[in-house]
Structure formats: structure tokens, C-alpha cells
């Protein structure tokens, strides 16, 4: 029955609504819905042609409220409408998550790349470019990608999880060797990025929840 192909995608959208990670792109389900819309469109066009052939130059049959053709046309448009809404919901939910990854300046991992469709990968790179352009106008002392957690202390202890070597931080040169700890400035953009990438870990800090505005 028409309209039922969209049901599995609705379930997927509902299931993944609250998760932060992006799930695998349901290309097959999306293609099925797109096919359904195309078939319906062809049907609608054939109805139009039929109307023109039967009734001369104007398609009165399709605009007459009481005719069965009019009812078919309305029904087709209703199903197309429904399908497009489902597709929009699914794609917009995914693009929200992709945008959140991009604003945190996190690179797309290989695993993540496989989960995204080709269009979404293009979207991610274009959106990152857009943010980069916006950041050019942003005050240099501020970091748009900073974690939105209220600061409580200027200095913090970090544990080094992977060897990094010598790095220039706001405190000067610091050597980051695996297994050691260092006291660094929490607001340092370099440190923040290393924490996000998993090279460093905050010690004794439980407030690592990421907040998304709005």
C-alpha cells in the first residue's frame, strides 16, 4: 500500500532522535521512498495526459471536484506529501547532528565517514567552511567551538593518554608524555582540542557534558 514504505524510516528517526551519535545512513529505505514518489508522479502525469486527451485542451476532469480523477489526484498528492515530510524529518535530524560535530571542530573519523551518505559528507565539509568564514569575523580572544560549560577554575590537571611531545601552550612549553599529568590553563584552545580528540583527559572533573544551545 502506498505510504507504507515510509514507516520503517519513521521508526528509525524516532529511535535515533535522542542519541548523540549519527547512525548509519538508511540509503535503501530512502531510495524506496524516492522511488514511490517517482512512480506516483508518473501516475499523476499520465492522469494529466489522459485528461487532456479525453476532454480536449483543458483538463477539466482533474479539476472537477466530483470526478474520480480528482480524488485520485488528491490521494497521490497526499501520499507524496507524507513521504516528503518523512524524508525531510529524517535528513534534518541527521544534519543537526552533523552540524554539532562540525561546530566542535571534531574531524570525521573513518567509522563516521562510512555512516554518512556522500551528500552528508559534502554537507559537513561545506558547513565547516561556512563556520570557518564566520570565525574570521569573530573576536580572536574568543573560541566559538569552546565547550559550553561554565568555567570554575583557571587551572586544571590533565592526564596524558597518548604521547604528544613538547607543545607550546599558554603556560609556555609543556612536555606531554603518556601517563604523566600536567597543570594547564583550562581555556587554552590547544588543550581543549586535545581533550576533545582524546589525547588528554581532565582529572577530577565530572562536568564533561556537552551542551547544545537551544
Amino acid at each position, binding site marked *: 500500500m502506498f505510504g507504507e514504505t515510509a514507516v520503517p524510516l519513521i521508526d528509525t528517526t524516532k529511535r535515533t532522535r535522542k542519541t548523540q551519535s549519527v547512525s548509519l545512513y538508511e540509503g535503501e529505505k530512502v531510495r524506496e521512498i524516492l522511488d514511490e514518489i517517482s512512480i506516483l508522479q508518473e501516475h499523476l502525469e499520465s492522469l494529466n495526459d489522459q485528461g487532456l486527451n479525453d476532454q480536449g485542451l483543458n483538463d477539466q476532469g482533474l479539476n472537477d471536484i466530483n470526478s474520480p480523477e480528482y480524488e485520485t489526484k488528491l490521494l497521490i498528492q497526499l501520499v507524496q506529501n507524507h513521504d*516528503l515530510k518523512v524524508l525531510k524529518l529524517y535528513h534534518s535530524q541527521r*544534519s543537526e547532528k552533523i552540524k554539532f560535530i562540525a561546530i566542535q571542530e571534531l574531524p570525521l573519523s573513518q567509522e563516521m565517514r562510512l555512516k554518512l551518505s556522500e551528500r552528508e559528507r559534502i554537507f559537513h565539509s561545506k558547513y565547516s567552511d561556512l563556520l570557518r568564514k564566520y570565525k574570521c569575523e569573530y*573576536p580572536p580572544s574568543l573560541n566559538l567551538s569552546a565547550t559550553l560549560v561554565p*568555567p*570554575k577554575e*583557571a587551572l586544571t590537571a590533565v592526564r596524558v593518554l597518548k604521547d604528544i611531545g613538547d607543545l607550546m601552550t599558554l603556560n609556555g612549553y609543556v612536555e606531554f608524555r603518556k601517563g604523566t599529568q600536567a597543570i594547564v590553563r583550562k581555556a587554552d584552545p590547544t588543550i581543549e582540542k586535545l581533550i576533545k580528540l582524546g589525547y588528554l583527559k581532565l582529572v577530577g572533573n565530572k562536568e564533561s557534558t556537552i551542551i547544545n544551545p537551544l
Partner: protein
Amino acid sequence: MSRIFSCQNQKEPKTINLNAAYTKEFFDSDEDLDVVDEFNIDESNINKENNVDESNINKENEIFLSGQLKILQRAWLNENFSTEILPYEPAFERLNEILENQNIKAESLTLSQETSPIGMLLFIDNERIKYVMNRYKRTRLAKIEKYVCSINENAEYMARLSLPEKEFAERYKRLIEEHEHASFLHVLPQESLDVLKETENGTETSFATVEHPDLNQAVFCRFIKHVGSYSFPSTPHDKEILSKDDAYLVKYSDIRKLLEDHSIELI
């Protein structure tokens, strides 16, 4: 006490009275921000007399600085709770200038002594100001993205954006339309999409990235000025006396004008 320290204070650390409420007070969204109104921020007033002594200037500067921060805090909360985009707050730029100066001071202090207490306090203070500024910008950015089409179509909303935000809104709209078209809208010709949009007109939904702010949404607000006798537009026959510190739960469209006049704040 001001939350932003001046040079004068750095030389005399003993005069700084750090009370326990300092850290708690800063991010309390329920904090009474009405003090700002009393300061009546005006740069020309601050430096109008050249003969006043240095300590007086510093004190006035402190009031000016903390006033700017409070204005931005209020703007952030208003932006967070309102459904539509609000005018860009110029206090952001002024605060940015102050922040840069204060950063230089803190750097110079910690350069001579790495754990200088005043330097550390200045750093924490800077981080807190930066946090408010970042939250304000990110909230606006999220709102622009959410209502990108209605903002681009509405000249009034566009006028409320800063120049970089305008550019961002235009580029983002193009990007999201391109993405939606390539992902699923390409399946139908434009004429058919237009027909479907028309059938949806009653509910204001379509397949382009159109989402309008809901002006009928209920919001909590608090009066920061005495307004007097006033009737909300949705209930024109009921007059109410609105005085300072009154809190109401009303439709956003009812208090839109009052928010523009800075008579209320959203909480």
C-alpha cells in the same frame, strides 16, 4: 564589588573584598540585574571631568564594565527564552575591547609570578566573561539556523543581525537548500513541489527549510520598570497595573513591544 578588576586593584590586593557569593552570583540566571539601570551607562559621563582623581575614574570604569557584562547577560537570557531573534546587543563589542585589555594585564602579572593570585583571579574572571559572550553568540547562531528562511525573508529580522551574522544566514540558507535538494527534493519537479506547498498553506508547512518562530508561545517574564496600567493585546478589556519585579506567564506576542522597550526581561 565589581567583577572586573582594574589596574588600581592589582597594586593593592588587600583592598579587594572577595566575598563568598562571588562565584555563585556570577552565573545565577535568576540574579536581579536591575542594578544596571541605575548605572545609566554612558561613556561620555564617565570621563567628562578631567580633574577627578584616579581612584574615582577607576571606580566609575568598574561600574561601567560590570554594567556592560550585566547587559550582555540579560541579552543572552532574553535571546535564550524568546522565540524570535532579538536585536544584536552592542555591549558585546564593548565587552570584547575590555576583555582584551584585561587579558594583557593578567598576562603581564603571571609573567612575573606564575601563580600570582590577582593574575589567576583575572584569568577566571576573563573566562567567565568569555563564557557569557560565547553562549550569547552560540544561542544566536542556533536560532539563525533554526529559523533561517523566515529570517532571510523578513527584512525586520535581517536588520536585527550583525554583519557577519547576515552573511552567515544567507550562506547557510543556500547550503541547506542545496543539501535538501540533493538529498530528496530532486525527485519531484519544482512545479509539483509548488503544488504540494499550496495544499499545505493552511498549516504553514512545506518542504523547503521553512520554520517560523511561534509568537504564541508562553514565556515567563519579569518587569524591570514600572509600567503602570496596561492591557495585554490578547485581552484588551482587562487592564492590569504592572509594577517593577512583577513576574508573569504570558504569550510572547503580548510582551513583544515591552521587550523592545527594555521594560521586561525573560526568565
